[in-house]
């Protein structure tokens, strides 16, 4: 078999097939399928600090809503437990665990976070 391995940003990749940041990289299941299909790395969507802050603000709003009580209502939106950070947030967390493939982290930090 031809050796397709290559170096990229200090990472040794088994081949140069690296799906770019795209809708394919939004969902953890799809990421795993990409890996199975041979992708040596993926480029994840950027994480922006303000986005995380906005998510926190949203969480706070959920929580504030769940704290509003009167005789007839306990909160005004469906229980925030269902919304639990959401799949986007969760998938990001999982992908961060797969950070060795993330070129933005370079080769100087531990390979697993």
């Amino acid at each position, binding site marked *: 078999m031809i050796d397709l391995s290559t170096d990229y940003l200090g990472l040794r990749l088994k081949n140069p097939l690296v799906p770019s940041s795209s809708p394919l990289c939004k969902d953890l299941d799809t990421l795993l399928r990409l890996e199975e299909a041979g992708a040596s790395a993926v480029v994840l969507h950027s994480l922006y600090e303000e986005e995380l802050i906005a998510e926190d603000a949203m969480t706070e709003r959920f*929580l504030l809503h769940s704290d509003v*009580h009167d005789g007839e209502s306990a909160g005004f939106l*469906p229980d*925030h437990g269902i919304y639990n950070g959401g799949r986007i947030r969760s998938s990001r967390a999982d992908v961060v665990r797969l950070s060795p493939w993330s070129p933005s982290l370079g080769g100087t930090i531990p390979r697993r976070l």
Partner: protein
Amino acid sequence: MPRYLNLDGNEAAARMAYLGAEVIAIYPITPSSSMGEWADEWAAQGKPNLWGAVPRIIEMQSEAGAAGALHGALTAGALGTSFTASQGLLLFIPNLYKMAGELTPFVLHVAARAVATHALSIFGDHSDVMACRATGCALLASNSVQESQDMALIAQAATLAGRIPVIHFFDGFRTSHEVAKIEAVEEGTVRAMIDDRLVAAHRSRALSPEHPVLRGTAQNPDVFFQGRERANPFHDAFAGHVQAAMDRFGELTGRHYRLADYVGAPDAERVIVVMGSAAGTVEETVAHLLGRGEKVGLLKLRLFRPWPREALLRALPASARGVAVLDRCKEPGADGEPLYKDVLATLAEAAADGLRPMPRVIGGRFGLASKEFTPGMVKAVFDELAAQAPRRRFTVGIHDDVTHLSLAWDGHFRTDASRRLQHAVFWGLGADGTVSANKNSIKIVGEATDLQAQGYFVYDSKKSGAVTVSHLRFGPDPIRSAYLVEEGMAGFVACHQTVFTERYDLLAHAAPGGVFLLNTPQPAGDVWTSLPAGMRAGILSRGLRLWVIDAYAVAAKAGMGRRINTIMQTCFFAISGILPRDAALAAIKQAVDKTYGKKSKRLADLNHKAIDLTLAGLRELEIPGLLDDAGPAAAAAVEAAVPDFVRDFTLPVFRGEGDRLPVSAMPPDGSFMTGTARYEKRNIALEIPVWEADLCTQCGKCVFVCPHAAIRARAFDIAAAGAAPPTFKHVAAKSKDYPDGTRISYQVAPEDCTGCGDCVEACPIHDKSNLSRRAVNMAPVGPLRDAERDNFAFFLQLPEFDRGQLKQATLPGAMLLDPLFEFSGACAGCGETPYIRLATQLFGDRMLVANATGCSSIYGANLPSTPYTVNGAGRGPAWSNSLFEDNAEFGLGMRLASDQLMAQACGLVRELAGELGSDLAQALVAADQRQETGVRAQRERVALLRDLLAISEHPRAAELEAVAEWLIRRSVWIIGGDGWAYDIGYGGLDHVLALDHDVNILVLDTEVYSNTGGQTSKATPLGAVAKFSAGGKATAKKDLARLAADYGHVYVATVAYGAKDVHTLKVFHEAEAHPGPSLIIAYSPCIAHGVDMLYNQRQQELAVKTGHWPLVRHDPRQAALGAPPFRLDSAPPSLPIRQFMDSETRFAMLARSHPEAAARLATAAQDEADRRFRDYQARAAAPASPKQE
């Protein structure tokens, strides 16, 4: 080892109901709503029922709809259930007769609640379930949170076995909302209780084309009666099925129940018979009295229908010489209430048959609408039974000084069980997290210890600044106390809001030597002297320990903003010693991690930091040994010059003394004076607006948007300003419309403002040298309150400017009109109330209001006060609420009466024309009263008419006098929310629109059921998350405007005052002037949208600019002029709808749970907005139809 759960009665019942159901049809109604919400949440999580499938949850348009859907589902072979209460249960009744008549097994879980009579009440009693006693359904009572779980399952097993539908009920609020530690029924137990052969038998009876039958026939006199008797064996056998299910349940769980359970002395002489949560209180009291040698007992009746005659006779000791039967309902005119009558009949028959001697049986009413029922009252009933000649009919819990039926009771009576418990009371705000924190504390104690725990939460009736009082109990034994923590019993009392120290008797519950914890911003050295004198005296006389924390400072330091719930919870555990301090703190941190962990590590860290900072900031104060008289007195008494009714009724209820009012203090028919909110002075704003007269252009926008009518404008002659207080601001009127010397003032009501800040956001003027300064700005209320109070008092006594001289079609002119709707209890920043206030400014002196049940009826008329008020002449809106579902019809009736009586009066005027003079008579009957000037002229004519009638000797003069006031045109307003207009009341609304009567219909569209807590309505937009639309609403909002406009003769408009204020004003004028039905659909931002209500107007503007809320008008009068009647009043959307959706939590939250659905629905929402706008454009471009011409 059983597993314990800490939950409330609704959740306990819903857990069981969900497992045994395949179709759940619901409609929200307090206090049952959360049962349906739990089911919806579990279904959204994919939780399976007993057979591995996720039940289908369907929210219907009314309880009648839910009942119909349930009937259909059961008929077609599914297992089904529903949850309801009160008016909702009444709407179920026709179907209950049908389902019972067809021997259809199912359980309806009811959080039993008062039925509206002289007033609506959301609180608990048995008047709703007792109204169902003739339906043929079984009635099974649960007495506690534990039982609401257990009986829910027993009911399901029994109904499958016996085919009689069961209404399983427990007390609304007292049980439905009480949080308690209970033994869980595990799924295995449910599995063992539900016999799949019976499920299969139910399926075999399903309507099926494979083996068709006919059901629901019409029958004639020849056979109907026989058919009705044919089912007798099923009813006769059903009590046996219930007992068998109880027995099986006992084998599986160790908790044994009987149809009629007796506890007490085996040789009891006096016995109380009761159903519901009161049984716990009676049992606790019986135990206390037995310990003192009294021969008393309690018969807890669980099954009321079918009547368990034999079980009752077996359970009741033959030694009983006196039996008191307590009913939590009232049947006016009857010879006793239902339970009493049935017990009496059974005992009388048994005595007649010689089975047992006949005891003396007395019947009493108690606990209507959650009226407290305490051990002292139980003791009073036992004492009455011991009397020489006990009253056969009595009430207990009130002081009846009219019909003298009430028993006196000892308010200081305490049971041994109560004395063994630890009690804690917490005063907080509805929105400050106190209730959530206390529920969490119960969970921590319940899970970390063997202690039993109980929590009950009392709410006041306001939506802004609502006070909540949490009553918590802990102890080693089962807690049966179904009543509030008693005075003098709480070892721990916490006040989470400093302002309460001025308003309430916070120490009444405090036990001698207990702890009083105060959240206060005062430095420790100043706290003592900052307390009202009465409170300081109370602390000293009770020997309380005073602990303080500046929770808001801690929250700010920890980065938590104004969230103090975790901080106050930490204080409770740190001081109370209920758990070892370290264990408690670890448990709180664990709970924090559970709540925030997955969502936001930052928030979890902030909470941890707050907990640590709390411990550093919490301190016990040294209290001076003697009372000094430094510091403020208690809150200033409201002025002495108040109407007698306000003095004798309203003010005591404000003070929380309503329970002490006697029967005679109440009006007999539910009619109350208006104009009482002005006496409340709730002082809930932390900041109030300050008017900058130099910058102001007098545009009136701040007044226009104020939800509480707390900022006002008035024009007056300069001569009237002479006696103004020194800080009262007024400037020359800028408009040339007013005479020289006219001054204008914009004045805040400092004690009535809620501090929402909407006025500041609405102000279009910025100081060019300081852009953050507007013509009105928020400032801390503290230094302003006293001066502004005087200024507002002065402002109020200024005469109203001549309404005839004001340009009412302009915003500055209209906002100089006095509002006749002020200081409601609506949420700060409410998007509904500005519309009502506007209507009262324009038409208030001639308004008749029919108001659907909902937010607007609660902030409009929930005692103790009403925001509807009168003008200087004593005229103002006359208001009533009939039901939720019939409001359009109710208002139509008002119109019909007004028109009929006007016609009658006109006829009499014509008949008496000779006496009155033909000019006056002609003017009276032909008066054009479309505009206010016409109404005013007619009033003057009617005054003249009355003068003439007073001296007339015409035989019909008195008759005309009695109807003369109807010669003045009434402006009928039908007001309600979208839940009413789009859903439960739509049939009636549609009918009223289809007729051609002069009514003004105002739909306050929040796009969700706001009052019951955010359930989906047909007004909920596509893509929004709401309860019962957890995955985002998949269908578009109903286009009510288009439907109404299609009739042709209806005036229709959509408005959004925050987007186009002058348009809103114009629409109100046009709608009122239209002589037929008018429909105003008013966009009303709501806290249920998940937006900061400070940005109320911004959201309205976004809604219009993005096409979420196009502004349209359909005016049939235009058609008559040959112009297109339909107009589009807003420009084509200039922003994508996504921008609006991203700005509100109700849409944005979907991206976190269902990102693909969120994206898809956002696209669909854009398509829908585009489609609707194109449709409106096409309508606006169409020529007037020949029919309309």
